[in-house]
């Protein structure tokens, strides 16, 4: 036991030593800081020299009442006659240089930015009939473009590996008009603003702590409608320290395949609507609480169903610790018979970013539970209990390794399955 512990300690210390050699030393950082301070001193010196040539101005901290740049530009234009050609010309050059810098840094429209996400996965389980091996995750492209300072466009496109080919999917396609912070109106295809996970984490696995999403919000799943086509109003609610915000949307709701939204049109004349309200209290920076409701009429071969989804969550987004907990209830009522069923799902996830190794390691645990009653007529049975224990290691600011042990049981009377999963994910 003691020998094993000693070997473990030596390996850890060796790893720490190698890591310390690989990372830039504190001396280098200090040198850069000193150089930057030197640059600032030189800038200050240049300013002092310029100030000797230019007319004196008021003190800096009381600068709130200084004339606007336009007024100062007018003053500068009138100045050469009084100040002589030398300083005036210099000031003119300075203004030209300033205008060029401002023009260069100002947002130009449209300003398209593209970001990609990808992941490569490995899985091995003791489930009968499955094989272990590698698989390519989604290749995800995200596009964001400001069309003006009030109008923005966002899109997300994924490339998905299948046994015989790849498919391309438009996951999100949104154009948004911002009136102000309290009212922003958008149209398009969204991740439905139900609960937390579905809108906090999209297709890039790198964004989330774990390898996979909780089962009830997984892509391609049916428990909640992950996607939504329609219009959405969102914004802040004037609420002081409560930090309230809202989303309210109207759209097509579930299509004839209930895991898809009605991209090409609704399959009935009834629109779905969704409302989401959440709070980020000012006193508890990192805390977010929220609740959502979603209402739709689903038309299937077996008849029409009224769907009522309610969801509530509490999250602590700082990573020391990270805490996510969310609960959803899906009520289906058959219009013809009034037979009603309730399906429930929840997850609780706890993570903690360790203070060592430059804060690059985050162990985590998640428990998930989903239950659908036998009388449920819209879903197939989705009973599931999962425990996930894993570690995320951030290789760089933009890439991570994750490894997980999962123990799960799907369906009634099915055996428990153990699995080991690994993933490297990144953004580029």
């Amino acid at each position: 036991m003691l020998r094993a512990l000693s070997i473990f300690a030596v390996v850890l210390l060796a790893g720490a030593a190698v890591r310390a050699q690989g990372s830039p030393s504190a001396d280098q950082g200090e040198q850069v800081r000193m150089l930057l301070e030197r640059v600032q001193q030189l800038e200050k010196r240049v300013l002092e020299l310029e100030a000797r040539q230019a007319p004196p101005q008021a003190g800096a901290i009381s600068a709130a009442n200084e004339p606007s740049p336009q007024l100062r530009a007018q003053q500068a234009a009138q100045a050469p006659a009084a100040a002589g050609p030398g300083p005036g010309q210099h000031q003119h050059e300075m203004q030209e240089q300033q205008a060029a810098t401002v023009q260069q840094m100002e947002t130009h429209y449209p300003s398209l930015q593209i970001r990609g996400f990808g992941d490569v996965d490995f899985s091995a389980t003791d489930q009968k009939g499955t094989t272990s091996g590698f698989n390519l995750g989604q290749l995800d492209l995200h596009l964001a473009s400001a069309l003006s300072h009030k109008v923005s466009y966002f899109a997300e496109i994924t490339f998905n590996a299948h046994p015989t080919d790849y498919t391309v999917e438009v996951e999100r396609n949104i154009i948004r008009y911002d009136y102000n912070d309290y009212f922003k109106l958008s149209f398009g295809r969204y991740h439905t603003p139900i609960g937390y996970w579905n809108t906090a984490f999209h297709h890039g696995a790198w964004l989330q702590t774990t390898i996979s999403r909780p089962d009830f919000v997984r892509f391609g799943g049916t428990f909640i409608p992950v996607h939504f086509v329609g219009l959405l109003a969102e914004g802040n609610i004037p609420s002081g320290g409560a930090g309230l915000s809202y989303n309210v949307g109207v759209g097509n709701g579930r299509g004839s395949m209930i895991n898809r939204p009605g991209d090409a049109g609704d399959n009935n004349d009834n629109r779905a609507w969704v409302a989401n309200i959440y709070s980020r209290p000012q006193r508890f920076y990192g805390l977010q609480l929220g609740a959502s409701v979603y209402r739709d009429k689903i038309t299937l071969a077996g008849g029409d169903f009224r769907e009522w989804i309610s969801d509530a969550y509490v999250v602590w987004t700082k990573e020391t610790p990270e805490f996510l907990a969310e609960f959803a209830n899906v009520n289906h009522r058959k219009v013809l018979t009034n037979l009603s069923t309730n399906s429930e799902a929840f997850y609780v996830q706890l993570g903690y970013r360790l203070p060592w190794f430059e804060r690059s390691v985050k162990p985590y645990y998640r428990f998930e539970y989903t239950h659908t009653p036998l009388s449920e007529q819209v879903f197939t049975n989705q009973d599931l209990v999962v425990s996930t224990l894993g570690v995320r290691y951030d290789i760089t600011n933009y890439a991570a390794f994750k490894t997980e042990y999962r123990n799960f049981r799907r369906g009634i009377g099915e055996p428990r399955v153990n699995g080991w999963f690994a993933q490297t994910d990144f953004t580029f």
Partner: protein
Amino acid sequence: MNATTKRVVMIVWVLSSLLVAMAPSGAQTTRSGADIAVVVHPDTPVSDLSLSDVRKVLLGERQYWSSKLPVVLLIRAPVARERDVVLRVIYQMSEAQFKQYWVAKIFRAEAASPPKIVYSNDMQYELISGIPGAIGFIDARNVRPGLKVLRVDGHLPGDKEYPLR
């Protein structure tokens, strides 16, 4: 001291050594220097913000000063002291967390672009005085005429209670 006690002492010693070896040094977290002033374009219709309001602006949760004037966030490039203070006091994030925060923010379609990066005080001065709605953070000793210095929680840089230092 019997064999079991020796083993326990040995284990505690090994674990303590590991913790000391892996713990970050205090020198990386201590900073000293002048106050960091919150400065805006002179025409910006605010003069006093609470620290929570400054945080909301920097987190991209408040994106408009008024319906016609969007916030333009400016932040110094890494290693500058102004950036260190902003990340430590306002964002309460590491450099990596800050970068990830903005990638996620844009990815969630909550913002169209991240803060603009400025590389020197000169550049910052030019941009804040030239772009309506711009907000930046400057060492209070380097604030120049033509910029509007905001009170934070009712305090100006130099006040004992000023939070950004």
